[in-house]
């Protein structure tokens, strides 16, 4: 028995491979999405995993490249935990969860890489495309890293370049040209309480989880970002088991995304 009544209560369900919402430990909630939901963005997606709802929007602009990557476009990813999403957030500067989630989603997209950054170069050393992906949490019912990463990828797939006149962006008109996607990337986070592994937590499960491991994979199955979270350490055997489970769940998610990319 653990010290925490809430955890013990939850574990009684987990023993029978059951969750508060009736799912098995390794089941996702219903996943639904809608593309192009924001007319003012160059690409967008609204994604729901059960009660969790996020909107991702892509904005494109022309900017100078960073000095160390003169022939590559720029990527910026930010996950915003809007105060409307749950009682846990307030307006103001990004809190540590927002910073962590942003960086984990960013890392996967950047390292894979999701975009062919060289194709985002307009003129070496002078002008490149700046790709900003903002993911805003509308309702937080847990699992924000996976949902945010999934939505970011859909929004990138949905994006179209705006028209460019004399080196300036004309936001009133989108072209048919899509972003140069190199890899499809999606994070899967495996959570642990006591000896149980599970995916896609509702908020209560997220808050009570003792450890989590996010494994972001790209379309060839390779891992392109890892993040361990939570207050409890993991054993090597845990990691082996979480790797295997993440692969299985990744296959389910990428199947959905591939429908969009075709």
């Amino acid at each position, binding site marked *: 028995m653990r010290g925490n009544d809430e955890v013990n209560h939850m574990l009684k369900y987990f023993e029978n491979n059951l969750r508060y919402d009736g799912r098995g430990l390794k089941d996702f909630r219903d996943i639904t999405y809608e593309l192009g939901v924001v007319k003012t963005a160059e690409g967008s997606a609204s994604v729901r995993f059960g009660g969790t709802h996020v909107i991702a929007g892509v904005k494109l602009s022309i900017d100078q490249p960073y000095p160390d990557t003169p022939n590559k476009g720029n990527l910026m990813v930010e996950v915003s935990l809007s105060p409307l999403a749950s009682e846990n957030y307030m307006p103001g500067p990004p809190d540590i969860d927002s*910073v962590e989630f942003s960086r984990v989603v960013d890392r996967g997209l950047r390292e894979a890489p999701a975009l062919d950054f060289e194709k985002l170069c307009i003129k070496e050393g002078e002008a490149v495309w700046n790709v900003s992906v903002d993911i805003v949490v509308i309702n937080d019912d847990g699992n924000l890293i996976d949902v945010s990463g999934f939505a970011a990828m859909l929004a990138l797939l949905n994006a179209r370049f705006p028209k460019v006149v004399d080196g300036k962006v004309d936001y009133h008109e989108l072209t048919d040209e899509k972003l140069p996607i190199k890899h499809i990337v999606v994070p899967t986070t495996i959570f642990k309480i006591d000896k149980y592994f599970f995916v896609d937590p509702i908020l209560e499960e997220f808050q009570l989880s003792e450890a989590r491991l996010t494994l972001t994979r790209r379309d060839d199955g390779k*891992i*392109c*970002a890892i993040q361990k979270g939570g*207050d409890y*350490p993991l054993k090597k055997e845990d*990691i082996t088991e979480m*790797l295997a489970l993440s*692969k299985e769940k990744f296959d389910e998610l990428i199947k959905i995304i591939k429908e969009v990319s075709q």
Partner: protein
Amino acid sequence: MSFDKRIDGRGFLDLRPMEAKVGVIEKADGSAYFRMGDTVAYAAVYGPRELVPRFKQNPKTGILRCNYNMLPFSGVGERIRPGGNRRSKEISMVTEKALLPVVLLDHFPNSVVDVFIELPQTDAGSRCAGITAAALALADAGIPMKDLVSAVAVGKVDDKLLVDLRYEEEAFEGEVSDIPFAFIHNTGEISLLQMDGIIDDESLIKLVDLARDAAEKVYEVQKKALLEKFKKVGDGNERK
């Protein structure tokens, strides 16, 4: 181009030269210096002390608060603007989580144990050096701990599995991964695991074992540093 030799001639599984000292900052309640090759970390512990703002106090336990900071002149490129950024915030947070499992904070209700980590010079592996130094500084401060935490980065460059990467190795053209680990010495449990780069499942599992072996070498250096200071206790020469 394939990767078959390390720039400094080390073996693939060799660590850079390490150096550790505790009690290096007189004003702090505990402190440490840790160097891994050209990556240098100082850590200082202040506390346990009353946590302010008070609404953050927990009557059941103290909290651990870590701050990781690269000094303005510590990067290979341009000056790093002081004041922190998203990266340093994230690293401060994962540092806290890496140390949390061994620190017995329930001894200190309503309190905070502050750990400040400063890096004057870096050549990759800075979060690991910071965690290793922080664990030493906590021990030096006499904070009750179950164990020490030792951190080291491993990775795959081209088709080679490496321990303790340097900047130049991380920048290799082609597939590279940089995977910082922290281990709890006695249990072998992992309290830090992150990755930038590309890796396959099989290599990652192999790297867990290589990282554990490397972390044990870091542990030996940590243990020696603590013994060097505390074996003297009783001869009248100890600090304070």
